[in-house]
């Protein structure tokens, strides 16, 4: 037996594979919203022509990629970890001879892998069949797209991790969570493309990790912007945020160990 982390990736995958009905229900919702969003954008662009470089095929591709990626990056935390902190079950996680943050990331990558199969591909296929679609022009884009998704999952994981880990200090994290719930869809580029934002807002967001969660993978796929810059941005934030998670966990564990649960 060796290397627990690859095995945790597999476990994360298999874990979600056991909930087929939930996956199907979520998929249905994704698809319905996808049709609505695509219809709205097509209606707008039919009158406006191209907006900030988005013609109809690009906008439709943006919508379906976004719908598919939504459950892959999993924008909103499941809060399982904060429940484990509150219930004290976290002492089991802390007592294991592993890097807990890395273990949770590995499991989350497995979950994302499963979501790619059941939640990303089906809505994409529907989008391709029913709407004009913009395929990557260069073959290497497919590979870069995959890399950008992995980085998107890492960035999203770290944000979810930190939101959950507030439970070490706060009895009730609803405030923080509702703020994230309200703004996350906007700042990651789920609601409208970030390119449609005012210049100043785009400039501000470029300094945050949020675009890396959704807009960047979509831009990589639709071949907009400098791919090196997009992936570099995501990679730097992945490393920084992962380190921040580890620091936060260390502080949380210390608080637990010193003050008691």
């Amino acid at each position: 037996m060796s290397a627990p982390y690859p095995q945790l990736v597999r476990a994360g995958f298999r874990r979600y594979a056991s909930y087929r009905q939930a996956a199907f229900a979520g998929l249905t919702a994704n698809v319905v919203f996808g049709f609505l969003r695509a219809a709205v954008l097509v209606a707008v662009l039919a009158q406006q022509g191209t907006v900030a470089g988005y013609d109809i095929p690009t906008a439709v591709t943006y919508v379906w990629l976004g719908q598919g990626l939504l459950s892959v990056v999993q924008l909103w935390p499941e809060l399982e970890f904060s429940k484990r902190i509150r219930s004290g079950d976290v002492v089991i996680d802390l007592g294991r001879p592993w890097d807990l943050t890395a273990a949770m990331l590995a499991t989350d990558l497995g979950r994302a892998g499963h979501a790619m199969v059941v939640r990303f591909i089906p809505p994409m296929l529907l989008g391709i069949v029913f709407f004009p679609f913009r395929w990557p022009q260069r073959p290497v884009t497919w590979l870069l797209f995959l890399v950008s998704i992995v980085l998107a999952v890492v960035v999203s994981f770290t944000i979810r991790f930190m939101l959950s880990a507030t439970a070490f200090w706060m009895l009730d994290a609803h405030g923080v969570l509702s703020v994230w719930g309200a703004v996350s869809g906007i700042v990651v580029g789920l609601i409208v493309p970030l390119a449609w934002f005012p210049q100043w807002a785009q400039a501000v967001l470029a300094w945050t990790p949020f675009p890396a969660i959704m807009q960047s993978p979509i831009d990589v796929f639709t071949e907009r912007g400098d791919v090196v810059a997009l992936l570099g941005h995501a990679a730097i934030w992945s490393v920084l945020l992962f380190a921040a998670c580890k620091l936060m966990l260390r502080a949380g564990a210390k608080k637990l160990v010193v003050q008691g649960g």
Partner: protein
Amino acid sequence: MIIETDGLRRDFLVGTRLRRRRVVAVRDVTLNVAPGEAVGFLGPNGAGKSTTIKMLTGVLVPTSGSASVCGLDPVRERRELGKRIGVVFGQRSQLWWDLPLEESFDLHGAIHKVPAARYEERLEECVELLDMTSFLRTPVRQLSLGQRMRGEVTAALLHSPELLVLDEPTIGLDLASKERLRSFLSAVNARGEVTLLLTTHDLPDVERLCRRVVVIDHGRVLVDDELSTLRRRFAGNRTLVVELTAPAEALAGLTGVVDVQVEAQGMRQRLAFGAGTSAAELIAEVARRVELRDVTVDEPSIEDLVRTLYASSRPA
């Protein structure tokens, strides 16, 4: 010593910022456990058992005093300690809820980097002794509590820990499941590979598994002794139950007997006798007076023993 503590103490601050109050959960626990021992750690709710266990497993810093487990400082070397001990909490799970039991075992093996051959051997043995074949492929969330606890104990043993800490492992189990778990743990401990530290409210667990008992109350060690010694010191009377071939009057005037109860119209009598009296002599004396069909000696229950201990220790 596999566990060595000296004057372990833990305070908690409770209440709001304005009205803080200091609560002492563990006042003074000095405990030494040698490798291979099986120690029952008893005490009423709030006595400080779980707090002590948290300090021993490195998830809580002592306010004062020191602890060493497997020669390690539990808090500072928690990760290393995690490789050398196994912990089972009756009320928490270390298994992956959504995965088949077998996959939880695989993950445990991987996390602890157990060599494949030893993992297989260990797992096979546990599966056989705990009769788990039929539910190895069942997701943990669908297991009964008894099945899940067998899984928990197996997971805690897969990496061959030197010390197994069990915090109320039989809570909520039915009698058959309790017995199965006890006999397994007793067999594992008897081979001398693993030291057991067991907290429980279920005194038969202790009777079955532990030669030594540590009783704590109000955060202090009340008693730390062999179970048999404790019985002799605190337990008071044993009872000789005699079944007669014909009804008889209450057997009065027997040496050492302090109480006689007559049951079944004089066919059965319960003779309570003190620690200074030998059961064999008493049986012989009874046999000279009446014809016996059967005799049994009831040991005082450990419940009585612990009740006596707590009653004698209540601070005034």
